[in-house]
């Protein structure tokens, strides 16, 4: 197989298809006078530093203030950002990016390959103490692990500026999805001179210099973030939306009320409200698949309960939970019940045949679950006592309550344990749990982002499911020409061993003002860019 792939072709096509007045605005569209977009944030933005940010909401802001090598379009396909295209060496380990020469920082300086080198080294450098430093390792960048561990100086990281417009990256294993990973905010460039001059204050409104389509004009922590169109952006001529405003509203129901009062253009719909809103506002209530899966992780470690070491018990727990009730009666927002780990909408992935998912209805599963419990030696005389731990959230609470009632049917008495996120995580990492709510959002649109997580060497496998066959399958998948078959094998192992109980696959359930256009409709990561938006005249 020819490992040399390039985006140049698609980029060129995009250039040809480029419409006249703005990216994505169809000809003949009547635009509204005021081009502004107001969206919702649940919490205050913790950091606007690309290498420090760890939040999804922070990334939404970063994508508008900065621009990485590639962007995504409405379907999640890569489109050129600062990089026009790239070439890959024969062994698939060296990527050479060809950067555009008209990219500018908002202070007018040119964006160079050196800015990326600085940013990537900064991410890995333990002196930066970034909580996302491991992303460099995930990207398999040469020497990333050693740099992060402080064993090598940051300049040994496998990223070099060949010249101002050529960036070379060396990785240690070929990663077919490497370019997809470059959409992530922690790989965005930052301006070295600015950071050295202002220290931690460089992200203040008025000080911050970015290379994105917008500049930061106001940031009231916990109140609002305002971004204005950046005229030095290389594609500014095609940016229609003049102003982006993010309002922090800590209460989801309040946010919806304020959306209905016309104060916001986009909010999440609280669990259970989608059907009603969809009926009342069919053009505004929208549900699209979202790249996250919700599970209950089982503790198979030494410290876990004896009962969970029995695969029959684990299966019984999984079978007894009625996913239809959870997605259709509780969430009601177009989520799908999950019978496997990887999200159904992930590109080039198809779930293998799984007997309990495909060949049984819920009544049969429940019967089987009861039988399995009896076989394992539990019954009405000897009920199984387990705790179910979840982090604070109205939705997690509802699902946990429902699950505990469902498990009661097979003689499992569940005690609910609600903790704050930090304690929840801490307890999971110390194996202080029986069953724990967990969700994983894919870092990119490819099945390995899920499946790698259950390997024994993953940093997230808190239930300590250690399975050699599984590890081998996932290792083999890295170099396979067509990894799908191996991914399916991995899913089959998970179904046979049931170290995690799949609950549901996420959906983005939003109210979006009907005059706002250009938001992605088919992008499982829900990666959106203000530069693609426009408001039509009503």
């Amino acid at each position, binding site marked *: 197989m020819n490992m040399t792939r390039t985006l140049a072709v698609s980029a060129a096509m995009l250039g040809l298809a480029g419409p006249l007045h703005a990216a994505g605005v169809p000809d003949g569209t009547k635009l509204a006078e005021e081009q502004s977009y107001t969206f919702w944030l649940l*919490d205050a933005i*913790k*950091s606007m530093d690309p290498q420090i940010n*760890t939040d999804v909401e922070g990334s939404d802001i970063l994508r508008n203030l900065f621009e990485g090598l590639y962007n995504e379009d409405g379907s999640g396909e890569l489109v050129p950002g600062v990089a026009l295209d790239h070439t890959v060496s024969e062994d698939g380990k060296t990527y050479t990016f060809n950067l555009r020469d008209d990219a500018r920082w908002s202070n007018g300086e040119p964006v160079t390959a050196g800015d990326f080198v600085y940013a990537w080294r900064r991410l890995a450098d333990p002196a930066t103490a970034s909580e996302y430093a491991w992303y460099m390792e995930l990207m398999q960048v040469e020497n990333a692990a050693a740099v*992060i561990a402080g064993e090598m100086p940051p300049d040994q990281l496998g990223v070099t500026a060949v010249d101002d417009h050529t960036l070379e990256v060396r990785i240690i294993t070929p990663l077919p999805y490497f370019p997809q990973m470059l959409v992530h905010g922690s790989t965005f460039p930052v301006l070295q001179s600015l950071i050295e001059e202002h220290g931690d204050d460089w992200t203040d409104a008025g000080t911050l210099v970015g290379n994105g389509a917008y500049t930061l004009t106001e940031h009231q922590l916990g109140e609002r973030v305002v971004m204005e169109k950046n005229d030095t952006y290389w594609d500014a001529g095609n940016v229609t939306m003049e102003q982006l405003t993010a309002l*922090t509203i800590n209460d989801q129901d309040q946010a919806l009320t304020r959306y209905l009062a016309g104060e916001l253009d986009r909010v999440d719909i609280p669990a259970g409200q989608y059907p009603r809103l969809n009926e009342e506002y069919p053009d505004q209530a929208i549900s699209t698949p979202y790249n996250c899966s919700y599970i209950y992780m089982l503790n198979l470690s030494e410290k876990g309960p004896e009962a969970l070491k029995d695969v029959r018990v684990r299966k019984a727990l999984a079978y007894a939970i009625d996913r239809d009730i959870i997605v259709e009666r509780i969430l009601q927002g177009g989520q799908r019940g999950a019978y496997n780990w990887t999200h159904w909408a992930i590109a080039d992935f198809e779930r293998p045949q799984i007997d309990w998912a495909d060949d049984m209805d819920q009544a049969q599963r429940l019967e089987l679950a009861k039988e399995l419990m009896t076989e394992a030696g539990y019954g009405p005389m000897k009920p199984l006592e387990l705790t179910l731990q979840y982090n604070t959230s109205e939705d997690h609470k509802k699902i946990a309550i429902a699950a505990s009632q469902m498990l009661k049917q097979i003689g499992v008495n569940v005690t609910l344990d609600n903790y704050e996120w*930090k*304690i929840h995580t*801490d307890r999971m990492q110390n194996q202080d749990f029986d069953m724990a709510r967990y969700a994983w959002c894919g870092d990119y649109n490819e099945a390995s982002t899920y499946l790698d997580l259950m390997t024994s060497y993953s940093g997230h496998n808190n239930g300590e499911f250690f399975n050699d066959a599984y590890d081998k399958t996932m290792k083999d998948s890295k170099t396979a020409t067509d990894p799908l078959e191996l991914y399916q094998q991995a899913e089959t192992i998970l179904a046979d061993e049931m170290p995690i109980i799949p609950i549901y696959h996420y959906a983005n359930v939003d109210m979006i003002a009907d005059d706002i256009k250009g938001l992605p409709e088919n992008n499982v990561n829900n990666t959106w860019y203000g530069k693609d938006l426009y408001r039509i005249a009503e």
Partner: protein
Amino acid sequence: MLSFVLKRLAIAIPTLLLLIVISFVLMHSAPGGPFTAERELPPQILANLNAKYGLDQPLWRQIVVYVWNIVSAFDFGPSFIYKDRTVNEIIAQGFPVTLTYGLLSFVVAVTVGVSLGVAAAIHQNTALDYIAVGVSIGAQVLPNFVMAPILVLVFTLWLGWLPGGGWQGPEYLIMPVIALSTSFMASIARITRSSMLEVLTSNHIRTARAKGLPERRVILRHALKPALLPVISYLGPAFVGMITGSVVVDIYFSTGGIGKAFVDSALNRDYAVMMGVTILMGTLTILFNLVVDILYGWIDPKIRY
């Protein structure tokens, strides 16, 4: 008088020290640190983070350094979670907000509450009295986290008169102030009413009336001052209650104030912000109680310092 003030201020120091020690011990003995992340951090990075925030030092040393930084430079350190901000910056942004709607609520609660109470007392057993008593009893038990969403529903969604939240101009103040002041106003009205009734039957009021002074003058000049004594002693608890209420206001009206900052910092283990806000609130409580005591002495000549 001066020595009284100084003595009270002297108490502030051990109080704040105690507060710092309690908070430090509480925070550091609990599971889950500020850097507990979904993925366990590489050891070198964790070590650097701990060093940056001084968490690698023994507890007593952290406390000493913390206090020293405050005393010598008024520096509350960097926030653990809002990595590009210091605690000073966070407080500088949020505190004026909280102070604005808090003070306004306080003024509204006292003026409206006292007026309502006096009016009800003067017109005892009339319709006005019954309405005032009924409303204030109801308002007293209605939690502000119930009132806030109802206000937004009515004034923002249904009537469209007021913005549902944010902090941009005077109209953004109205709902926060209503939500925060109502229950205190109700309490003050009830207290004023009952103490006014008591004062109105006392001897010196009878004397004043016997002298033929106009009723208005009797009430304002002679009755009001003593009747306010119990109101003033209620101001302390009211102040503390308003600090708590600011959390609800910040959550529902997205004002970006200090109350929400505290809850967030507690939930996220942002030790620095948590300490900073707690110390700020403790100091304010001490100062406020001092003001109340001075006020009390000014109104009641029987009290000597």
